[in-house]
């Protein structure tokens, strides 16, 4: 099994799909000749040529909509929104047009397209280039939302996304692009299925994207036997796997790279509570970012993001007191 960086796993997944399926096309800003600012489309122009691999003008609305249109006419566009924030100028085409097109055509049309976007903090890109913003695309029936956490899931989920007959939003943790991991190119991952990345019996952590690594690091030094679920798909998320795990462990901790307000983890908590109210040994909790924009300063950005130390603190407190601990910013009086 080759080890590759996440960014290479992404480029490889696209290339493998392009080789198998001539309808797959790729476009976005500076993704062709320049191979993307994060090199996630390396080699594609060279192998597949300028008809299938195209640079666009800075026109997210137009090219996201162009993907919708091309998808209805038999192509499978894989487009890149360089930073998820740029979807703020193009949301309409993905959410109000693309995702509803099957419904509003009474099933006459499918819209097989993938919108890739880099997300997340940790690299010092500041308040307008560091968010995850899953909330923008949540509550969009018709749209699937995926988030890989390592090279293997980037590869396998992206192939699944491209093969999917419907629009998929694919959120890539920018911090992970440079991380290496082994990739089995024959391993299939299914949309809507979470991965248990570490088994454990005392407590379940649900995470995704770069928070999966944070959870791993926390678990590695924890005294508790933690099971980690990498959610992989945010919509529709894998209730079954999560419920089975929490049924076993009796404890749930969600680790989210989102402000406390508006984060996806609330839904996991609410659904788990609805099903397993009587089985829970301790109160399910969320570990999130505070309700502030992402700060630029390195030290502050590191504090802003959930990290292994805080995760372990929260878990230890939870185990010790049985109560939901305060987040660090409340403890410290901010």
């Amino acid at each position: 099994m080759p080890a590759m960086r996440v960014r290479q796993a992404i480029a490889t997944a696209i290339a493998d799909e392009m080789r198998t399926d001539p309808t797959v096309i790729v476009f976005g800003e500076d993704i062709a000749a320049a191979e993307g600012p994060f090199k996630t489309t390396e080699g594609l122009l060279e192998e597949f040529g300028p008809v299938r691999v195209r640079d666009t003008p800075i026109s997210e609305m137009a090219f996201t909509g162009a993907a919708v249109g091309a998808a209805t006419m038999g192509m499978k566009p894989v487009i890149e929104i360089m930073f998820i924030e740029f979807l703020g100028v193009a949301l309409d085409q993905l959410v109000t047009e693309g995702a509803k097109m099957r419904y509003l055509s009474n099933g006459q049309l499918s819209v097989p397209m993938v919108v890739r976007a880099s997300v997340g903090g940790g690299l010092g890109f500041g308040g307008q280039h560091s968010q995850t913003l899953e909330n923008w695309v949540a509550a969009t029936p018709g749209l699937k939302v995926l988030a890989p956490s390592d090279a293997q899931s980037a590869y396998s989920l992206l192939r699944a996304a491209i093969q999917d007959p419907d629009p998929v939003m694919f959120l890539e943790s920018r911090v992970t692009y440079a991380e290496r991991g082994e990739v089995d190119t024959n391993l299939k991952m299914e949309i809507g299925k979470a991965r248990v990345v570490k088994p454990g019996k005392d407590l379940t952590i649900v995470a995704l994207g770069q928070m999966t690594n944070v959870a791993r690091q926390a678990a590695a030094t924890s005294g508790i036997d933690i099971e980690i679920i990498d959610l992989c798909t945010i919509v529709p998320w894998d209730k079954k796997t999560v419920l089975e795990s929490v049924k076993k462990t009796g404890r749930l901790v969600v680790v989210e790279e989102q402000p406390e307000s508006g984060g996806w983890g609330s839904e996991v908590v609410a659904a788990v509570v609805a099903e397993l109210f009587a089985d829970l040994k301790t109160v399910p909790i969320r570990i999130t970012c505070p309700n502030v924009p992402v700060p630029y300063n390195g030290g502050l950005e590191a504090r802003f993001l959930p990290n292994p130390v805080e995760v372990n603190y929260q878990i230890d407190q939870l185990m010790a007191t049985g109560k939901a601990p305060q987040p660090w910013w409340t403890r410290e009086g901010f």
Partner: protein
Amino acid sequence: MSKGLERRKAILSDPVAQFERAVEIREFENQINALFASGTIRGTTHLCLGQEALVIGMASVLRTDDPVSATYRSHGIALALGITPESAMGEIMGKAIGCCGGLGGSMHLCDIELGLLPTSAIIGGGMPIAAGAALAFQIQGNDRVAVALFGDGATNIGAFHETLNLAAIWKLPVVFICDNNVYAEYSRINLTTPIEDLHIRAESYAMPHFALDGMDIDAVREGVQSAVDRARSGGGPTLIEAKTYRFAGHSRADQALYRPEGELDSWKSRDPLLLLEERVKKSGKMTESEIAEMKVRIAKEIEATVALCQAAPEPTTKTMFENIWSRKVSQ
């Protein structure tokens, strides 16, 4: 051949059929107007009265595999492209026989066999989609052409600008048709943009452009044909501005009291129905009495359509859970 395809074929070159279709659209819209006014239909509606020549002219030079993205002002273009009155009216009444199964409504008509993409209720929403369809054809190497039909007001939204630039730099086989009916909702166009001839905006993208008389079906056919020919032969996109006029208010509730005096009358003197009628009369293809009979026949047909649609069944609850995704994913 489906009924829709037959209907489409009928108007390709026959001035009588074109006139008939215009009468049908007029009658259809008047009935819809009455049904909304009486509260029989809920929601909102946007009529195409006065713009029949434009939609029929367009439809008569397009192929059925040339997809059209249009707007919530959808009934006229849908009927022109060949959708049957039952299919359109059924949809507007929210019935299962409607082209969108009753889930879409007046603003969301669709018939892929006839080239009608789901109409969008978002201003500018359909434009990038048409460009994307054209991109598909370019890559597939076929000679299909995509068309975007949108209003004058839509030329002020970002999607217009981005799409024209994208289509121009990629030389996409797409035709942009701006239905300049002078008003965007309750605002006359001069109140929201300082230029009068909207088609000149194509200069910003080095794109060919021209205006045409949208009340005159022959002008529409000639203009659209030339742009379609350019697109089909690899010459890239065109921006056409069709000068038309909205005879009714913007939507259901609107009385259009904001019009300058005389404006409506002056445009009505060039009512496309009058011009189409003259056209068939002049060419000797129909006599006065044939015309009168035809109008009565169509009025009856549309009345029958109303009755048929009113009696038609509602969609089942199940249908609202279908067509979210192509395959059901357990949640």
